[in-house]
């Protein structure tokens, strides 16, 4: 089932070629991927039909304008797309898709996922401040060597940067100049890839080695960075300091692909109260910051979705106040996912921790009871 083909061209060119060729050859009726604006300095996702693909197709933009997983929720919540659709996803977006499939928000029938070795992306603000052409070129280079200087916080410490869970996975790392390797991981992927011409990759080991080495390095960096962050922000005073800038605008929640609710609980009637209650709280708290409940919003959101957080970083990109939201969630997610031995996006058949339980677990979370009645 596992087939691997050499696709000619430099990274983004190779992928663009592969997609166009697959759609043309009838592998899919439609394509979901990013495309550039006319000037080529901004990018967003498009749903495209065969025969009308835009010439600005840019499946590897150097920024993540929104998470594709969120778009797919929007598209398929009420049911799958009618025809086969190729979907290009960053590895983090792919993991988010898996989570959302578990939550019945994405109906993935007919979707053929394509993912790739992702070097990360630039923070939105930096990209729009900088020179697009230069940054695009830097990004192109990073696709080959795996490291993007100036990448977003979470991208810099991402250890799950390959598309191994996708139907078709594109390898750039450890691959000879001027080509990329397309690997079909599933039957559906193989069907599509089979339509495309290209020399078989006999020996995949050079990429495997490069990926393995990079993963190990990143895993160490991730752990160190998150622990350092924990030192930095841990404790009530530090948290208060970091969150002081938070506008409580909830943008982070709005762009989060995992936050699939129609209306956020923290914007719901649960917290609407009469003025006198706010006033009473203001008295107790020596001043109530408005809008209220910033910390509750973050803690509550952590309890709701940190187990499924894929560290895509969309939250931080959306934050107007430069709160390190993505590091907060990556840090907490690492812990909550850890206790449940859960890796979001790993496997669609793995139940979300809150929808599952074991009869014997977490005894250590219970306070042991020892009746006190004299000495032994």
């Amino acid at each position: 089932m596992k087939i691997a083909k050499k696709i000619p061209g430099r990274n983004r060119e190779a992928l663009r070629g592969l997609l166009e060729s697959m759609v043309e050859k009838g592998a899919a009726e439609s394509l979901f991927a990013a495309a550039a604006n006319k000037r080529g300095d901004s990018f967003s996702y498009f749903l495209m039909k065969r025969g009308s693909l835009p010439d600005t197709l840019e499946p590897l933009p150097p920024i993540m304008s929104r998470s594709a997983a969120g778009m797919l929720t929007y598209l398929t919540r009420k049911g799958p797309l009618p025809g086969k659709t190729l979907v290009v996803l960053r590895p983090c977006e792919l993991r988010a898709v898996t989570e959302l499939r578990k939550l019945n928000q994405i109906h993935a029938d007919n979707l053929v996922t394509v993912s790739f070795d992702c070097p990360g992306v630039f923070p939105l603000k930096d990209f729009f401040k900088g020179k697009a052409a230069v940054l695009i070129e830097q990004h192109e280079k990073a696709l080959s060597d795996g490291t993007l200087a100036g990448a977003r916080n979470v991208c810099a410490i991402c250890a799950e940067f390959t598309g191994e869970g996708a139907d078709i996975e594109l390898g750039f790392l450890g691959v000879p100049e001027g080509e990329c390797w397309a690997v079909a991981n599933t039957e559906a992927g193989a069907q599509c890839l089979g339509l495309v011409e290209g020399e078989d990759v006999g020996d995949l080991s050079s990429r495997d080695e490069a990926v393995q080495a990079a993963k190990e390095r990143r895993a160490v960096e991730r752990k160190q960075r998150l622990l350092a962050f924990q030192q930095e922000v841990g404790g009530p005073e530090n948290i208060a300091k970091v969150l002081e800038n938070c506008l409580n605008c909830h943008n982070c929640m709005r762009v989060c692909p995992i936050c699939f609710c129609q209306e956020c609980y923290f914007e719901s009637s649960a917290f609407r109260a009469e003025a006198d209650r706010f006033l009473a709280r203001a008295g107790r708290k020596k001043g109530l910051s408005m809008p209220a409940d910033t910390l509750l919003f973050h803690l509550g959101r952590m309890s709701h979705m940190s187990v499924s957080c894929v560290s895509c970083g969309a939250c931080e990109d959306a934050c107007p106040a430069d709160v390190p939201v993505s590091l907060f969630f990556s840090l907490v997610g690492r812990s909550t996912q850890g206790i449940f031995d859960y890796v979001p996006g790993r496997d669609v058949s793995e139940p979300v921790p809150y929808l599952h339980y074991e009869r014997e677990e977490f005894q250590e979370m219970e306070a042991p009871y020892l009746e006190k009645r004299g000495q032994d």
Partner: protein
Amino acid sequence: MEKQSITLVYGTNLSGYRVAYALGKMGYKTILLNRGRYVDEFRNQVLAQLPLDLCWACAYAPQRLFVGMGAMQVLYNSELLEVKGEAGNFDVRIRKKDPYVNNYICAECDKCIEACPVEVTDPDGRKRKAIYTLPKMFWENIYLVDEEHCTHCGECEKACPTGAIHVDNKVEEQVVSVGAIVLAPEFDEPTEEDLSRFGWGRVANVVKNADVARASLATNFTRDSFRRPSDGKIPHSISVIATAQFNDSGVEYESYNNSVQAIYRANKIKQVLPEAEVTVFCRQYRGFGKGHYRMYDRALEVGIEVVRPDHLKLAEASGDRNTITYGWGTDQHQKTVDLTILVTGQKPPAQMGRLAEICGVEPDEHGFCRIEPFSCARTNREGILAVGEFTAPKGNPETVWEGYGPVSEILKHLGPPNVEPPKPPELRSVNGELPKIGVFLCSCFGTFQERMDLEALRERVEGLPTVSHAEIIQGCCTPPTMQETAQKIKASGVNRAILAVCTPTQKLMKFRKTVMMAGLNPLLTEFIRLREDVVNVHSEPEEMIRKAESLVRSATAKLKRAQAAPPLSDEMGSSALVIGGGPTGMEAARMIADRGFPVCLVEKSDRLGGMLNRLGKDLEGRDFAAYRDQLVEAVEGHANIRVCKNTVVTGGRGYAGNFHVDIQTEGQAPETVDAAIVMLAIGARERKVNAFLYGKHPGVMTQLELEEKIQTGKLEPGHVAMIQCVGSRNSTVPYCSRVCCSHALKNALDLRERGHEVTIFYRDINTYGFKEDYYRLAVEKGVVFIRFEEGRYPRVEEEGGRLLITYTHTGNRKQETLITDYLGLSVGIAPDEEANRDLSAIFGIPLDEDGYYDAESCACPYEDAAKRLMKPFELATNGVFPVGTTLAPRSVTESLLTARQAAGQALVVLPKARLASPNAMYVSGVHEALCVGCGNCVDVCPYYARQVNPITHVAEVRNFLCESCGACVVACPSGAAYIRDFKEEAVISAIDSLVA
């Protein structure tokens, strides 16, 4: 002559209670005779065997409810004197004496105790009055009058504000006319004399398991639970003995599975005393229930030693220790321990003689009440039934099942229903009114004032901005005070009310009725536990007021946002689909059809009968064929049963009361059957075997094949060996099939009759209850039993056309051999995995880790099992009832009980065209605009009460299945799921107020 509609239940065993509850739900009144002065003076099986390991509330709480509804009358200090007449029309003379204190009216204010002039000193030096409370488990205090010291001065009666006391109650005789009688007397525990071999009552530091548990009621097991009675020290070594396995024959019977209880207890000890050395003594480990074998494995893992001697005796040792002398034959060993816990069995019922005389029922050879073969609870006398531990040593599942099991048999003898629930009062609409909250502080007839400054609290509460009215009331739990309080609520003009009372756990229905009498929807009220949260548990005056005030404040925050809603109900169909035409399926179909409901019975083969077509008789000698033939005839000729042979189920949709099931009969067009309830009775199969030369040597066969050979006379003379536990009780199949030992014994006894020599290789002989007799008989008849250990199964080879068996002697570990002509393999029962999986997917009923249905568990004394069994909610499995061996391995007779109990449950709901939500208006709901159909609520709902509508992708609630636990509320990240009286905004503001 018209039939009577009342049923008389004699005794307080759990089956009897549950018969009363089941009949109550069907609209029939029951009179229950309790010999005791209070609810559980006589311990029944549950209290004796599981005194602590389960919450008893589900068994007791309904009693209050049914009495309150008028569906049940409980007579105390009562006795059955004479039974005249016949089924349908018995005249029963009874004696009773109403308790001096009526527990249902008593407010537990203690005024009677204060008023009583008689001081009594108990033998233990404790002082009390002639009227006193019994230290109770759970929320009730039982007030008793000590006959010996009471002077009948009447002071307590005068002091009682609720009129609950009558010191002049006399013994009365009366005759009641009933349609049926259910004998349900309690459990008889072995006496000191019965347990003399184990030193109980004579040797220090020998205690009974039930007593250890009972002594720890208020704390559950802690280190302190196992302190030695002699010196209060924590023991270093503890032995646990399953006494029935070592006692003289006929003294005590192994009630269900004492060895399991012993292992269970040992595991509990290890949890709290990990350093203790724990030894369990049992001859056999009879863990045939779900999870029992796993429990045994865990015991070994945590370092519990399990010793399996043939005989055992306990004697006193120095230092108040116990020496246990045990061994095999003449091989003697000794072990000295600090503490011994006896897990005791059950004696034949002491009531048997009297009841035989009065009712004409017969005892069996063990002194228990005899039951008609293949029946549930039918005695030799028509219209008189016997249930629970009265008819055999039983476990918790059986006593629970025998509540619903005999209902259709009872209904045959009854006239029309005679209980109608009272019509609820008219409620007024509060639409358009601003919230006006009234707080009504109960003084419990003036007693709370003595313990706290209620007037100060009232003033404080009245000052709250959210409260428009505050008032102290006398009570709201007796008819006059309920009336008075309802008037006060009305007069105050409020549209929301807080009652600060004792506790709704005890008197919820009375409180609800009070506010409803005031015209308020119960959702517009909150009941605060002033007594349990403040008055009874605190003493600092100012702090008590402050705490009470914050509880009231929090309730106002919640109530302000409350919205009225009516109780909900949903349509309920009246037909049943039974899948599987074996004994369980047929019996269930017949029971339901007999009550007039249409049944479709689907059988995949061309013949009804199932396993009965292969089995001749059971170990006790009951003839299956005759039973099968009459059952098949009854089912096939039944006007209400449609039998579909050669038919399979291919799909289905819907939920309790509203299933649409696709069936396919060979050679016919597919069809959809509507069913309100579904019985899964597809049975199980013989485990496949590929060992011990099975299939390779003609002399090797399964027990079932061996039985067929014996029956048809095709077995040539020769030696027969048997190997038990083939392919089970190992790491991949970690359970016991329950029936194989009986099957092997039955074949062995038959073979001995025919002159064959028989040798049985076994790990444990699982002959529980009376089956032990046949084990003894087999030993007497010369059947040779050779034990082997799990890792040392005998080896079988062919030698000159015969079979050579090599085995290891358990005692001396030497290899020995045996030549045999035939080998019977006890391969046990395996689930029909494929069929179970298909039906599990269609009906959404989960399978357990062994591939059986997870709807029940017979894992006494595992808490889980008892709890799930006890729950009095018929539709807990969404109207789908797996029965018989689809649940776990069990015999035909045992399977029939599960079928009858399931049919009994079905008969509670089938007659109702609409079914109300079990929790009235307190059901969960969906804010449709917020729901995105993720299905989290569906996944976590324990009652199948939710589904995501496939068209709108929005969650829906099936009202009558919702028990309002709130799992959906927590699972829903967006607040789309709510419970009517726990809406998010109400809870958040209540918390804010409480912690403010």
